[in-house]
């Protein structure tokens, strides 16, 4: 039977992600509400205002670089007196997180970016690579998650234990809340992303919490993925050795993909026979590969309410082909028998700890309004009207180790209310696009480049 009270159940399961005392407005906004998506607007506003004002003051007081940005914009924490003032909080362009030096200076850059105390980090070697620095920070308890667009330039975000745990709790709550009609901790999961234990690539790292949410997790990509491997997979090689590595990766991909699809197909078969509840979480194109195989073999299943799919990271399935979300849901329904209300998409990115999830009723992206404030802005940085398209920007009330007030390269359309369900607050259209000309980015695209032999 699906759980009755999501918060109660998850607070028990995810107790390691909850601090012993909940004291700050950010923590209250995250851990107190019974629901992320069903709060009355007034209550959600109260939590969000508290969390973001607190986060803003925290970064202003503890982050020299962001304080400078605020000074240039003539804003102080005292100027933020209501949610209406949120538009005054200076946004940092997502490109900023791609503008860093290399070697030892990269470590210094990361440390200067942080708004929380930098623990003792020991960096070895005169010219450490990005991976060396990431490993050194990891040893000190700071997760430096990364992501890469097609230009091969990485985005790096340092998360201390505090921010990382809040982010993990947030994604767990967000995902399960929208899938509560399906959820049972006794379910089994297949992660369509890299093994979180073997990479700091954000798409892998962020799903670590899945190991706590379900009883058993299989992983599609069970190999180490460093910045070097990701860059080479993006087609950016700096020397002969890397060129050779690139060729070897591509050559090995075919067999690895074959094994991966085989494992997925066998897993589906096994789970179906056992009558298990299942969850696929991750890049849609990977599940699509398994669906292709099942279709070729003329197999289909009827998981019905026992099955769920939570996708994320974008919808590119081939070099020049995008998979329409609705078509994907139809395929999932036809081949796995999983109903559309159990097939949801999650929108997130390395820079944020806000997880927008489709509602089962209409597949619109709902915002966890208790701690996350979304702005959709035009070219002049002004908020667009409801019903209009614009650049996705956000104020993250639980990003403590770095200023999470960021404008992104994504284009979204915002509505005042969900046209399909009764949950309060603004929603985004079901599909998100890149702003044209911004480099193609998306966790699924990263995965696609890593595993496809194209």
């Amino acid at each position, binding site marked *: 039977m699906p759980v009755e009270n999501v918060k109660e159940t998850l607070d028990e399961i995810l107790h390691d992600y909850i601090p012993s005392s909940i004291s700050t407005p950010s923590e209250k906004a995250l851990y107190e509400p019974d629901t992320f998506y069903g709060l009355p607007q007034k209550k959600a506003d109260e939590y969000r205002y508290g969390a973001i004002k607190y986060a803003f003051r925290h970064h202003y007081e503890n982050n*020299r*670089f962001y304080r*400078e*940005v605020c000074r*240039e914009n003539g804003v102080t924490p005292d100027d933020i007196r209501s949610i209406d003032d949120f538009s005054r909080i200076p946004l*940092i*362009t997502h*490109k*900023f997180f791609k*503008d860093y*030096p290399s070697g*030892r*200076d990269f*470590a*210094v*850059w990361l*440390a*200067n*970016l942080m708004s929380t*105390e*930098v*623990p*003792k*980090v*020991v*960096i*070895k*070697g005169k010219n450490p690579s990005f991976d060396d620095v990431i490993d050194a920070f990891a040893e000190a308890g700071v997760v430096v998650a990364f992501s890469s*667009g*097609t*230009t*091969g*330039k990485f985005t790096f975000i340092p998360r201390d234990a505090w921010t990382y745990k809040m982010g993990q709790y947030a994604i767990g709550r967000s995902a399960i809340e929208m899938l509560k009609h399906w959820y049972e901790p006794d379910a089994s999961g297949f992660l369509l992303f890299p093994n979180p234990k073997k990479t700091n690539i954000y798409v892998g790292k962020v799903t670590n919490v899945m190991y706590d949410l379900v009883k058993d997790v299989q992983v599609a990509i069970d190999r180490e993925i460093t910045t070097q491997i990701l*860059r080479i997979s993006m*087609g*950016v*090689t*700096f020397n002969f050795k890397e060129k050779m590595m690139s060729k070897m990766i591509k050559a090995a991909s075919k067999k690895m993909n074959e094994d991966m699809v085989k494992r997925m197909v066998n897993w589906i078969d096994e789970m179906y026979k056992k009558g298990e509840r299942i969850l696929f979480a991750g890049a849609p194109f990977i599940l699509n590969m398994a669906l292709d195989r099942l279709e070729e073999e003329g197999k289909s299943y009827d998981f019905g309410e026992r099955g769920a799919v939570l996708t994320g990271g974008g919808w590119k399935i081939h*070099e*020049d082909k995008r998979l329409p979300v609705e078509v994907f849901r139809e395929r999932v329904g036809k081949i796995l028998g999983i109903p559309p209300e159990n097939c949801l998409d999650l929108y997130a990115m390395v820079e944020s700890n806000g997880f927008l999830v489709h509602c089962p009723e209409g597949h619109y992206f709902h915002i966890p309004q208790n701690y996350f404030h979304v702005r959709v802005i035009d*070219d*002049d940085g002004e908020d667009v009207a409801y019903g209009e398209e614009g650049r996705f920007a956000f104020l993250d009330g639980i990003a403590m180790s770095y200023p999470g007030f960021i404008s992104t390269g994504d284009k979204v359309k915002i509505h005042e209310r969900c046209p399909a369900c009764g949950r309060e607050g603004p929603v985004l259209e079901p599909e998100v696009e890149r*702003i*044209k*000309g*911004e*480099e*193609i980015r998306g966790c699924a695209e990263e995965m696609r480049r890593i595993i496809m032999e194209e």
Partner: protein
Amino acid sequence: MFREWREKGYIMPARMLRVTMGALPSLIKVLLRHPVYVMKSNLAARKNAVDLGRPSYEIPEYVEGMPYCKSNERYLRPTHLCNPHAKEIIALANHLGAYKLPDWEFAENVFNFVKKNIKLAFVGMDREVDTLRRGTGTCVHQLSLFAALCRAGGLKARYKLYSLALVEPLYENMIEVSPIMKSWYDALGSFMLHGTAEVYIDGEWVVADPTFTPEYEAAMGLPLAKLGDDPMGIWNYPLEGTVMLLEGLPYGVGVAWNFLVNFLAKGERIKIDRSMNEARKKGREILDEMGEEEYDASVRAKYEAKIPKITLEKVPNLVFE
């Protein structure tokens, strides 16, 4: 001779070869997938060519004895498709103030001449004088013309080439108008090759990006580039690991390009040229209405708020061993 060829960049650098070889398969794939479309597009191009007009300037007459730089020093000497000893180049360089004006002023005049007069168009690769006579060219044509004029006037000049991602308005105007180009760009996530020039003034290499005329910049909502403005982060984002500094262009650089724009995908090329030409007309209206200076000031103010910089301060807890 081999050393000189290498210095001059006549032998294609490995990085450029990699960029080209990396980009070609996706282009071939796109073309092979849509043969009928490409054929129809080429046929339509024959009937509906784009008229970019005649150059708006007269090339000054060469007079025997005009001074020009005869040095064989690196970055001053002639290179492939960039001949500072050509008579028209010498005449124009003199007309723009070579050996009369201070270096910066002369370089600025050259920059403004190329920027304001040479319209961006996807034509086949040819010599700097061809670009000058025609009044159109790709960014690489413009760089060659800029470099040739600078070198003729005794200023060292070189190429900085790279693959890049474009900002939205440029993507819409140049890429999206051609389904073939769009598929190619989307497959790569970037455009294969772009470049800026660099001119050596007072002990420093100064960036010069004369690619767009002011009209086109206005249509795209970009600031009006000046000598020294780097387009990186303004309208383009270079692909990591593709930046190349070259004295000259390699032999064979234009073979595949010429085949593409003059024959294989001529129709698509014309679509892009037409789109850029229409944009220039719109941009002219914007500049006439606002005035160039006012337009530039208002757009620059917007661009100033771009990427904040972190000052790298020592952090006591960071220990380097």
